[in-house]
């Protein structure tokens, strides 16, 4: 599989009050994504997941700027592209699905118009082939009787169906990468599973890569090949989903996994003590240390960088060194 996306040391900051206040929403994250792969971007609200996505597509709000690092997509560097070039990429080669299906669709335009737009503007499809394409797309997201449905308006559809339409819109330009920003959070629990199946189907049929932003680890387990856990603007651990679920090394990842409710046990729900930090006033050293059960003196003063655990598995934690040392010591003892 060829490498599709490579984010290197990306830093996106928000500037307010004339530059007096800087919020480091994304502070040096790096990850890669191959064609057809799915990566889960996990974390609590405000950790920088959405800002990362907006940085990739180039639609940051005016107060935010990419101040460092690179985003390489299919061999091209996105951070240096002009707005017009980014516009041609958006919708055509990189698509995005937003969280709220009702708000995402324009109430005054028909489903047909909204699904057809990317194909119309990016691919130049017209007339009958455009109609056929829209029907294909709607069928691919499991919307029955597409010819009837496409003449309808958003308010005539249920939430789950609308979100599937948003998925169809995302596929319309034939993208290589889809970024899904919490697409199931606003859906009924019963509909969520169906929607995820639809997404998986599309992915298998078209080979599109997926960045799945969520705070729900159950979804990550179901949908993703690898995952990156974000905290306070940094990726604190990333690796294959199986590895992390079995033996996560970073205390934050462990806490997240530990706080998942498990069927069949009567253990009390574990909640991580404390609050996510204020991004404008981060603690010194490792940002997680105030809430970490295993914090050492070193953690309070020195920010950890990536400690390698295995080939594609890194975590930003001093404990990794300690464990490696212990293993080494016990190995030679």
């Amino acid at each position, binding site marked *: 599989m060829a490498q599709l996306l490579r984010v290197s040391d990306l830093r996106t900051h928000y500037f307010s009050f004339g530059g007096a206040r800087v919020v480091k929403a994304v502070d040096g994250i790096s990850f890669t994504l191959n064609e057809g792969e799915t990566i889960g971007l996990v974390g609590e609200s405000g950790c920088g997941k959405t800002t990362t996505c907006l940085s990739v*597509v180039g*639609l940051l709000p005016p107060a935010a700027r990419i101040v460092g690092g690179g985003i390489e997509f299919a061999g091209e560097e996105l951070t240096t592209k002009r707005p017009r070039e980014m*516009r*041609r*990429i*958006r*919708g*055509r080669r990189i*698509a*995005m699905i*937003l969280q*709220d299906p009702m*708000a*995402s*669709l*324009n*109430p*005054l*335009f*028909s489903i047909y118009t909204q699904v057809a*737009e*990317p194909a119309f*503007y*990016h691919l130049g499809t017209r007339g009958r082939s455009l109609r056929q394409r829209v029907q294909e797309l709607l069928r691919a997201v499991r919307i029955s009787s597409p010819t009837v449905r496409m003449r309808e*308006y958003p*308010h*005539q559809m249920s939430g789950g169906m609308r979100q599937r339409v*948003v998925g169809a*819109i995302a596929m*319309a*330009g034939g993208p290589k990468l889809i970024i899904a920003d919490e697409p199931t959070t606003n859906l009924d629990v019963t509909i969520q599973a169906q929607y995820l199946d639809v997404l998986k189907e599309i992915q298998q049929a078209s080979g599109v890569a997926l960045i799945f932003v969520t705070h729900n680890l159950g979804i990550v387990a179901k949908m993703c090949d690898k995952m990156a856990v974000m905290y306070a603007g940094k990726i604190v651990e990333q690796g294959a989903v199986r590895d992390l679920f079995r033996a996560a090394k970073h205390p934050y990842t462990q806490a997240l996994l530990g706080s998942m409710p498990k069927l069949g046990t009567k253990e009390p729900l574990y909640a991580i003590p404390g609050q996510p930090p204020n991004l404008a006033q981060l603690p010194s050293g490792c940002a997680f240390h105030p809430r970490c059960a295993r914090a050492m003196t070193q953690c309070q003063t020195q920010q950890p960088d990536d400690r390698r655990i295995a080939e594609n598995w890194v975590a930003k934690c001093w404990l990794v060194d300690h464990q490696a040392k212990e293993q080494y010591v016990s190995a030679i003892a």
Partner: protein
Amino acid sequence: MRQFIIRRTVYAIITLLILSLTIFLVVRLTGDPVTLLAEPGARPEDLARVRVEWGLDRPLPVQYLSFLENILTGKLGNSFNYEMPVSTLYFQRLPNSLELALAASLISFVIGIPAGLISAVRVNGAWDNFGKIVALLGLSVPGFWLGLVLILVFSVWLGWLPTSGQGDWCNLIMPALALGWYFAASLLRLTRSSMLEVLRSEYIKLARLKGLPGVVVIGMHAFKNALIPVITLAGVNLVIMVNAAVIIEVIFAWPGIGRLLYEGIFQRDFPLVQGIVLLAGMMIVAINLVIDIVYAWIDPRIRLAR
């Protein structure tokens, strides 16, 4: 949509009833209506005759019913001065007021809507600040004073435009400007805030995410959504302008309904005044109903509901 139309029509009818009742009661309950309904300079015998003619000695509810009956059959009384039915006079002058109102509306659209749109798209920029000043002036400068100043500058001092009367576009431009000025400002404000709200919405974000050209995002998606409240206001304004441009028409001697109303006041021609007020109210309610229906047709959320 049908339920919507039925409901709005019922409301319109109720509104008309209340308006007619108000006008009826105001006249009957504030002093002796005979003095209003009789021509100025009437003698006691005339007063008695008027009393009988208008049925002023009958109980109020009966009077109101015959009042309503008269309205519905179009008998709004005769003007003292013109000795013609009020309704005839009203509809005779209506096209003139309409001409003025259309011209003023056009000016207010051309100035207000684009300025509001640009202000919203380039919010807090130089254009936006300029727009805010224009809006403020539009609300503070009384339209009729603007009219007087325009006459002073362009007719008296510069001699470029005629001072008054109806004629070709030279006569039209100053009154239309004076009349449309206020509405341009209010349209600007409304367009700007409506557009700002739309631009913040999720579906505009998604439209940008689709990589649509900026022109399409703004011109098609944002524009159509933002215009809904603006069009409603514009339609309402037009009808108001037709009926309430009293002072402008007086200043520019424009032969419209407003001027007719002024004549009625000046010459104590009460049936004329009452008739015009009634007709103005009826026309406004009727047109508002039409606008509501058009609005219902544009917005698919209403059109496709049961």
